[in-house]
């Protein structure tokens, strides 16, 4: 909790700096004109005082665990170190637990580690506090010793704000890089133990077996084809529902429906998009799947209670609004002149829609469908709750299949060692998922943008 104390300290120093800077400028102003208002000198001093200290605090907090980790390693006995990286991580957890519960279990190694840990923590806190105060004060001194007349306080302040704004927008890039790096690194580690081609083209998926036999390098069990196929099967079912329903309702609402009906029906359909996916998962697992199973039984079909059909249908319902609102956008973007031209020739409305509007809107609609497809591929909760866990390579929608996202969740929830191929496999799957959806999205957004430009 020292971090919050330090943040308060920095804020306090900054306020002090603001007051001091403003006071000095206000006094100087009596003797002549300054280049900026006193309050701008206040901001200027506050920024010089607070910003460096804040940056130090953030960097320190980010790097501290890494450093302490290294230091703790040194006091740990060889027996722990010679095991894999993961066991050191686990040991760190033990240390934290021991501190939290105030119970060292009278284990001499643990006692020593805990002592060292607490000592390091204390040292770190002291050094950090001193540094923060020093930086804050020297910032004030630096800003105050600058000549008031030469300092463009306002434009300095504005530059700092501008840089801060830029950093804000850079967060998006940092996030993407973070995703790519984290997924990529763990995947590379995975591919050190499992051949890439065995992963991408293998048809047998059973990560549990490899764990049980303690054969980290075993590659036979990590064939992801059944997962890809299961994902595609469920997504295809979803699109089979969502595309016709979404497209036709978009056509009806934009071309036929009265203003009043459209004004109520459109938001009503969009409610479907606002319902959390876990709710759909519940609905799929407890209502739709049993319903489909019973229905199948009544006509003599053997339907799994975790059938791909159930998950696919519910997922289809979920993405109806994506297809319909994107299609609606592109259909209304088709200029009225097109409709007039066709109607003026004596075409009926449906002829106009089928032969002029849909062809004109086709690129946009395709883009929308691709976005919906990427949404279906990446959807997690519905399939986690309603699809199966066993990797069947089948095209029969009445059987249970598993998907990429289901396996990621299964591999990463519960007790985990971070270095086993089992957990790393989740990252490799994540990489596949990220790349696939990224390609789909970039392609779809490109098509949609091209389409918009056509009618601007």
């Amino acid at each position, binding site marked *: 909790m020292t971090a919050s104390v330090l943040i308060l300290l920095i804020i306090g120093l900054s306020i002090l700096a603001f007051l001091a800077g403003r006071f000095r400028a206000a006094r100087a102003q009596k003797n002549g004109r300054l280049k900026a208002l006193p309050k701008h000198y206040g901001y200027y001093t506050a920024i010089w005082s607070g910003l460096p200290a804040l940056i130090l605090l953030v960097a320190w907090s980010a790097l501290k665990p890494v450093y302490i980790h290294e230091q703790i390693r040194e006091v740990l006995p060889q027996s722990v170190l010679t095991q894999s990286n993961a066991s050191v991580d686990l040991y760190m957890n033990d240390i934290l637990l021991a501190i939290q519960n105030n119970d060292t279990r009278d284990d001499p190694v643990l006692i020593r580690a805990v002592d060292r840990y607490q000592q390091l923590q204390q040292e770190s806190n002291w050094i950090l506090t001193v540094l923060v105060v020093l930086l804050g004060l020297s910032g004030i001194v630096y800003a105050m010793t600058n000549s008031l007349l030469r300092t463009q306080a306002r434009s300095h302040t504005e530059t700092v704000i501008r840089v801060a704004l830029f950093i804000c927008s850079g967060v998006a890039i940092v996030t993407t890089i973070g*995703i790519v790096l984290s*997924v990529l690194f763990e995947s590379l580690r995975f591919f050190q133990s499992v051949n890439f081609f065995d992963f991408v083209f293998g048809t047998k998926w059973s990560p549990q077996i490899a764990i049980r036999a303690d054969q980290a390098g075993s590659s036979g069990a990590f064939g992801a084809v059944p997962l890809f196929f299961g994902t595609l099967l469920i997504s295809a079912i979803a699109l089979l529902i969502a595309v016709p329903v979404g497209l036709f309702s978009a056509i009806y609402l934009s071309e036929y429906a009265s203003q009043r009906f459209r004004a109520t029906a459109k938001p009503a359909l969009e409610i479907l998009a606002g319902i959390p996916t876990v709710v759909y998962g*519940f609905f799929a697992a407890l209502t739709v799947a049993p319903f489909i199973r019973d229905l199948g039984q009544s006509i003599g079909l053997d339907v799994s209670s975790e059938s791909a059909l159930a998950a696919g249908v519910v997922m289809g319902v979920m993405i109806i609004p994506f297809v319909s609102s994107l299609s609606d956008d592109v259909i209304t973007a088709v200029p009225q002149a097109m409709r007039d031209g066709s109607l003026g020739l004596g075409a009926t409305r449906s002829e106009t829609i089928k032969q002029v509007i849909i062809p004109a809107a086709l690129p946009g609609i395709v883009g929308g469908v691709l976005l919906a497809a990427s949404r279906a591929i990446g959807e997690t909760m519905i399939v986690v709750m309603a699809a199966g866990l066993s990797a069947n390579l089948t095209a029969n929608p009445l059987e249970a299949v598993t998907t990429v996202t289901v396996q990621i969740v299964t591999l990463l929830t519960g007790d985990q060692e971070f270095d086993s191929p089992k957990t790393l496999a989740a990252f490799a799957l994540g990489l596949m998922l990220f790349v696939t959806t990224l390609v789909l999205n970039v392609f779809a957004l490109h098509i949609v943008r091209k389409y918009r430009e056509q009618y601007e």
Partner: protein
Amino acid sequence: MNNTEQVKLSLKKRYAREKRFQWYGKIAVWIGFVFLATLLLDITLKALPAFQKTEIQLQVPIDWETLGLQPDTRIDPESLRTVDFGGVLKKSLREVFPDVKKRKDKKLLYRLISSGAEYQLRDLILSEPELIQQGKISLWVTADDDVDTFYKLKKSTSRIKPKQAEMIQQLMDQGKIRTRFNDTFFQNSDSREPEQAGIRGALVGSFWTLLVTLVISLPIGIGAAVYLEEFAPKNKLTDIIEVNINNLAAVPSIVFGLLGLAVFINFFGMPRSAPLVGGIVLSLMTLPTIIISARAAIKSVPPSIKEAALGLGASHMQTVFHHVLPLAMPGILTGAIIGMAQALGETAPLLMIGMVAFIVDVPGGILDSATVLPVQIYLWADSPERAFTALTAAAILVLLAFLVTMNAIAIYLRKQFERRW
């Protein structure tokens, strides 16, 4: 006229096609409606039982002797630690059914009431010690979830033994069993026993997580939107940022979970299951939504207002912060609320960072282990006990109520502050 005749000939067929086409559209819209209605109705019907809980009336002896305490002991948690409240309740159960003699039957009898009933009794005595003077009180204790299900459905389930069914029938005849509003559901946190499980812990967890999300994503989102709309030069970097934001909006949420696991938990060593990490992950996820809507809001402020301020000699920065942002605020907040609603319903990334743990305590801050409402729903939906189905559906209703409220506020804001320039 030849042409006209020809056109006339084709008309009937064409109008039939026209009508059919219109019907396809109507059917499509109604399919959407029917799905929505079925979903909501199904969940509401499933949830209804969870808002009622079944209670059994017992005459509980609570004199000093039964409690095993010296007369006039100070009543506090410490002194009550030794008291066998379970035994006291069992004794009062036996009094209701004096003819139950066999050991096996007694066991069934004891299973009629919730295992949490003893805490109910203890808490009562803790809050009103003077009750002990009465020697005996009449107390409605929570029934076991199987009894609850049996009593509400009024039909046998495999989990109720015939003997127990007889006992319940006897209680009904004596009017010693009733249902009332299930306050437990709102006051308790997660539990292995359905009749003791509630959503309080998950709600508080959701609150902390959303708080972190809001604190991080709102300033960063506004900052990014202001930069991109007002200050960004037209260059490659800006293009890359824009494409990036659009793509991030479509990255599957589970991938953000992987990011959180690899970066925040494994690299930076942040605590697992904590609202802090959950909030950070969710804010990265909602950031594109907030940025996109904030940009739209900023863009809709007419340039004439900006020009007026610039014309008076205000700097670009002053113009933005004094004039553009305040005018764009309702739009920005609308977007932020919608982003928060998204974050509130999100489940998958939180599974990755360990917010799926079974947590009984109400989290007291952003570093405590916590779960959130949607994850609680996921956990309950996975539980085999029948009574959890109702709880899950009820929790879903609560979640939907929050989402509806948030969206209603967003719509209200938009309506209220919508300006036609």
